[in-house]
């Protein structure tokens, strides 16, 4: 697997829902098509909210890596 280098990492650990998703939406809004953004969230709601938004917004969810205390969501701006 080729490692994807994010252009921006959002450390939203400790932020309550929907902070991590909103920070990701803001980064996608300001980014360029093709940019890869990584969002770190310790909020349980992000596990469902972030993939749901990525699917709705037709962006690309590259990976979700679960750590014991938080999850890393890697998203590519597809459009």
């Amino acid at each position, binding site marked *: 697997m080729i490692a994807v280098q994010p252009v921006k990492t959002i450390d939203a650990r400790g*932020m309550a829902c929907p902070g991590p998703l*909103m920070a990701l939406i*803001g980064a996608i809004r300001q980014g360029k098509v093709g940019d890869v953004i990584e969002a770190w969230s310790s909020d349980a709601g992000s596990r469902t*909210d972030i993939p749901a938004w990525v699917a709705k917004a037709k962006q690309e969810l590259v990976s979700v890596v679960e750590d014991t205390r938080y999850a890393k969501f890697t998203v590519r701006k597809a459009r």
Partner: protein
Amino acid sequence: MATRVIVLGGGVGGTLAANLISKQLGSDGHVTVVDPSGMHVYQPGFLYVTLGQANGRWLAQDERHLLRDEVDMVIDRAIRVDPAQRTVTLDRGGSLGYDYLVLATGSRLAREEIPGLIQGSHDFYSLEGAIRLREALRSFPGGRIVMGVAGIPYKCPPAPVEFVFMLEEYLHKRGIRGKSTITLASPLNRAFTIETTSKLVQPILEQRGIELATFFNVEAVDPDKNVVTSIEGEELPYDLLVLVPPHRGAKVIEDSGLGDERGWVPVSRATLQHEKFDTIFAIGDATNLPISKSGSTAHFEAPVVASQIAARIRGTTAKENYGGRVMCFLETGHRQATTIRFDYEHPPVSPRPSPLWHYAKWAFNRAYWVTVPQGRVA
């Protein structure tokens, strides 16, 4: 020599912080408020002006009258802060030196960031905007009204939900509810940022026939075609469009390199001290904290900043830390309201909407000028 404290901004947080710091320090401190207008504006009133429930006259008062006599006031715009020299440069020339600085500079509307927003939409985030929207509603013949959000974070998170509830009642009174649709376009997959409050308000939206469009983050407005589009790739046609404009931190924060890429000041969530500069604190909308940007937040943060600064000057330990406390009312129309109270550790549980909270909000609106800025309510 008295310690010099400068407070930038004469809103809820700045005014209360200045009064409390002055009171706590007595002759050991000299507090100066710098504000570009010298007028204190009660922004929660904009919504009531929009729906014709209040006129704009009670929304502004001379800031000088709200400050203790010992607090100095400078009516000018701060254009630059130099944290190394501890100076604030003023727009009309000259500068002020400080030992401690409180950034209570609020947020700034960035309507120009969304294509077509200025030409194609209304908002109630300024008195001028509220009056313009009030007039548009008075002559509205019926049709599709869309309420959307063009950027997060924004001031007063409940406002879009409150607006659609109050609008629904307003359209009934005008006799055009049957000829109109109301759509709340939410940036999230629910009506409101806080899940528990969402669960309370969504059934009421349904009962009132208010449509909910989810995951709709406004990208652009086409004022010729009367269509608003989202970054999720959807569009909503409208006859009257109301949008919460994008918000940024104050220009002086951005120009002085004191904030993040949107101009929000990074602070400790407990002490509200700037992450890089020991002598700078921030409160209210100005901070980057992931909590509500609202007068209520500023109100609860001001005593913390006063306590932190007074303790540093006196060489003691501050008695107060900020625990994330916020308390907001949420009007649900038809003379009912609920409340949203929470802190860092406790998510909100909103009571069922009732007339009690609606009248409590009205009482608070009326009592504001003689209670909050002076620190008479905690």
